[in-house]
């Protein structure tokens, strides 16, 4: 199915974004800060991804991806991966902070 990789991304979104509603982690309200944290790291990894795809270190089953490609022949799903997975990680850290406010993270005012 063409939706194989999209299914994984959807699962990650569903598995993490509920924290916005239930625990009010407010990551989406701080999307500018989130994007500033994600972009430099994601770009470094995408440069590697482009290199690895070019050298066939890894490759994708064209029958299980949408078949939409961004720059450097990287599938759309890979670009979305580098947005969805970091957002899920930030939401998880903020959820832990909500539940355990006494645990210092390092940015407390």
């Amino acid at each position: 199915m063409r939706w194989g990789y999209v299914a994984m991304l959807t699962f990650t979104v569903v598995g993490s974004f509920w924290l916005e509603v239930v625990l009010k982690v407010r990551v989406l309200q701080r999307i500018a800060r989130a994007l500033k944290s994600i972009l430099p790291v994601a770009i470094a990894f995408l440069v590697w991804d482009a290199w690895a795809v070019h050298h066939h270190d890894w490759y994708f089953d064209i029958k299980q991806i949408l078949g939409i490609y961004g720059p450097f022949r990287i599938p759309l799903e890979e670009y979305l991966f580098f947005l969805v997975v970091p957002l899920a990680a930030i939401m998880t850290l903020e959820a832990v902070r909500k539940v355990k406010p006494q645990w210092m993270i390092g940015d407390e005012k």
Partner: protein
Amino acid sequence: MTYTFIVLTFVTSSLALDLFVTRIRLVTRRAFWTSYAIILPFQLLTNWWLTSRNIVMYRGGAIIGWRIASAPVEDLIFGFALILGVLTLWVKLGKRG
């Protein structure tokens, strides 16, 4: 083993960013390891999905060959490096304002 070497470079870079460049030192914090412990089973599950169904495949020569839940061990290290890098910057930016 290009994937192996590059992923080790990336995880070292994330650790250096956390410990020395930003001095956020997330890896010394309980909140970080608790978050990672929550993320890890989901990471193993999604890695398994992508690799056991051959959505993503790897050139044999690119990896060391050790697999965890069907995925190359490199995938696990890659996920850790990605998450640590992003979370370090997230906390760093929170500090500024």
